[in-house]
């Protein structure tokens, strides 16, 4: 691979890494043509993991990190002194195809800084996708970042070539957007999200290709003052109004040459993790935002225990729950029991009466579940009301590298 291209790749991958999403899931299953290249497998594949524990599934790059916008949280804002580079359309196509042939990646996740105009930038990104699909018969995964400031017809075009579209809201409130991202506007972001969601839904009904893996978005956590409860409320709205496949949370992380107006500290990774857990409770466990918010202190999730446990500790009167009798909905609310474990319990108990050791084979979270659960041979009795229950269930934090 040519040296110049290698250098650009380093710059434009470095510039893309603050986007949390790398998922290649949700596309309909495809196989390659006799002359073409690529397939999709539904759940997606992670081809490697970096030492931050993150999955490398797609070639996640920017077309360019030159940008006319000046979003304070962003490493690529125009006032930053980072190194800049720009790929040509053909360079991105070559990298994608050659990396794909070596089985490094599932496909491409292309985003870009805004150059010349939002329309021009978006057109270049669409051109990459079009060339991959048309000139190379590429059937792998393509995720395109949509630029909400671009003309609406470009969204119509992008969805025909991409498997997934996304617009990052980045900041959950209009006020924060105004302060930290002067060129962005919450209303036009949501207009574009609505347009995509409507078109995705129509195409699904008509069995046509338009961003079949849906749309996603991302919010940065810790760059502004928004509370967890407000972040989650925003998420609930986004899931409800625009049928988001996922809302990603990205702990605000120190960036090279950062802006003077932002907090410079380690990223709030635990907070990010708790938000993801709460997000899952909203989507798969039948919780609503207010229930989660009510067990948060001043709108912030408990960092020591997971949000389901936090809710259970504040709602002890709803427990203990009998694993052999309780409704599925209530089992889902037991700390330490995941949705899959609950499904197995519900099926298994038709044939047998579950004891504690049986439950232990179905979940790895038995320690957390035990005080809230009745089995054939176990009843927590008064233990549930003990004041030190929370302390006893706190996961011992892993030794921080700082103290080593």
């Amino acid at each position, binding site marked *: 691979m040519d040296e110049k291209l290698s250098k650009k790749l380093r*710059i434009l991958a470095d510039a893309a890494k603050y986007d949390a999403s790398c998922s290649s899931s949700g596309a309909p299953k495809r196989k390659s043509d006799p002359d073409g290249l690529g397939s999709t497998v539904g759940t997606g594949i992670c081809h490697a993991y970096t030492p931050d*524990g993150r999955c490398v599934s797609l070639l996640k790059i920017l077309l360019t990190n030159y940008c006319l916008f000046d979003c304070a949280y962003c490493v690529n804002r*125009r006032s930053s*002194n980072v190194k800049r580079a720009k790929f040509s359309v053909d360079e991105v196509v070559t990298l994608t195809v050659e990396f794909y042939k070596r089985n490094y990646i599932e496909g491409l996740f292309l985003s870009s800084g805004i150059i*010349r105009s939002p329309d021009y930038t978006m057109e270049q990104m669409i051109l990459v996708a079009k060339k991959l699909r048309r000139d190379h018969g590429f059937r792998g995964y393509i995720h395109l970042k949509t630029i909400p400031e671009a003309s609406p017809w470009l969204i119509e075009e992008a969805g025909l070539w991409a498997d997934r579209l996304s617009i990052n809201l980045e900041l959950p409130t209009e006020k924060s957007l105004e302060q930290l991202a002067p060129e962005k506007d919450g209303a036009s972001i949501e207009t574009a999200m609505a347009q995509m969601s409507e078109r995705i839904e129509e195409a699904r009904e008509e069995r046509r290709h338009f961003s079949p893996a849906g749309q996603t978005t991302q919010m940065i956590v810790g760059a502004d003052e928004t509370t967890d409860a407000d972040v989650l409320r925003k998420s609930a709205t986004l899931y409800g109004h625009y049928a988001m496949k996922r809302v990603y949370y990205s702990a605000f992380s120190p960036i090279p040459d950062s802006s003077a107006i932002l907090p410079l500290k380690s990223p709030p990774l635990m907070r990010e993790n708790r938000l993801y857990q709460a997000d899952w409770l909203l989507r798969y466990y039948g919780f609503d935002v207010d229930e989660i918010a009510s067990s948060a202190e001043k709108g912030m999730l408990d960092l020591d225990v997971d949000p389901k446990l936090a809710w259970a500790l504040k709602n002890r009167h709803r427990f203990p729950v009998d694993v052999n009798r309780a409704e599925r909905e209530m089992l889902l609310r037991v700390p330490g029991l995941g949705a899959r474990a609950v499904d197995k319990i519900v099926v298994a108990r038709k044939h047998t009466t579950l004891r504690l050791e049986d439950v232990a084979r179905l979940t790895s979270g038995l320690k957390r579940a035990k005080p809230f659960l009745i089995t054939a041979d176990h009843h927590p009795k008064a233990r549930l009301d003990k004041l030190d229950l929370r302390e006893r269930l706190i996961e011992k934090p892993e030794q921080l590298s700082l103290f080593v």
Partner: protein
Amino acid sequence: MTLHRITLKTGADLHGFRKAVRWLIAEELAPQHVMFAVDDAPGLFGDETVAIAPPVAIPKGVSRLIEQVVCHSDPERYALLYSLVWRVQNGERELLEVASDPLVHRIDLMARSVRRDLHKMHAFVRFRRMGGHELERFAAWFEPEHFILEAAAPFFVDRFRSMDWTILTPIGSARWDRHELAFGPPRRREDAPDEDSFEEGWRGYYESIFNPARVNPTAMRAEMPKKYWRNMPETAAIPGLIQTAAQRVERMIEQEATMPAKRTPERAIEAMWDQEPKTLEELNAIIAKAGPLVPGATQAVFGEGPHHAEIVFVGEQPGDQEDLQGRPFVGPAGKLLTQAMREAGIEREQVYLTNAVKHFKFEQRGHRRIHAKPTTGEVKHYRPWLMKELELVRPKLIVALGATAVLALSGKATPITRSRGRATFGPYQGYITVHPSYLLRLPDEATKREAYEAFLGDLRRIHDLAQADLETGELRLAAE
């Protein structure tokens, strides 16, 4: 009772196991009387001769589980699977539903381990281009944990069908020559190429996409266990990345914010917002460049007429003739429209004619290109262009010809029969009537004439409406 020794071949001997199970079940031999051994040279130690026995009807879930678990590297796998089959055949038909049962649990863990190894093989195989071949050929060396080569290969066929590739492993090899998949003997690491010209670039990507502020090697190792590392070129970067992470973050935090080295590009920023097309020519150039958003079409067919016409007629989509000539309303329906306009006193040259969808969507049947109705979603793909087009023409009145035009103009589907007549489309005064092609499709002359008269009536009202001063709302209409 004696112990029956069954010997199976090394690897995932599904065939041998299946044959053995049939015989064992037919002979009613309980698991405690059976012993499974794995050997490539059976028959040496006085093994049981397995006779042909009829198939055993076992639940689908169980046979699927067997297919996976025979791939496991644990020598005990066959004995465990036979215990499962025995119990299922002897009164516990729904045993798999009891996920908490110790045997089911153990076999499930084994199946999961096999599936995980398969998934990791799909993920972690790294092809290298082989030298000395004119056509591209690729090869990879991989060390799976279980006997999964044959189960894993179809994935690579589906994905790299046009590539010539070989996967070499210590348990066998697979070769795809663009036509056929063939399995061969075990191979050695040295048989695969030891480099590839894209690996350095890939390693550079891997290093750059890593965020040192989030370093978490435990999470990485959970998903990418060390045993896979030696065959993945990017992992050479891992120790260095972990070692320097803390230092890199510290430097970022300590460094004070710098002043921008370049001045603010005021003019470029202002120009960036000036991206909207300002003329129909500019808009049409954008449409032409985008290409069709529906299947079919040789070219885009743009609107036609004076740029600030008082009336805009919106049809459905260009037809066969329009597509060939590149002009709207020149086919049979267009001719009928032109004739009706003339009779109603509307000059075709004075109005602007366009379509909701700018490309001819068709299905090829033999030599004929058959018109295909655009779906709701397809009509909406074209809607932003239509809206911009109308904004540039700024007509007094918009005429929707047929249901597709109504959908495009209003954003929702409305039947013509109920909405025919005056309408509003966003900020515009509108009028809804049928599409002239509807008149052509009517079967008998009498209905055709009747419908044509009604259409003429609509056009006359449209003519009058356009004459009236719509802006002040004062309508001087002869017909009303």
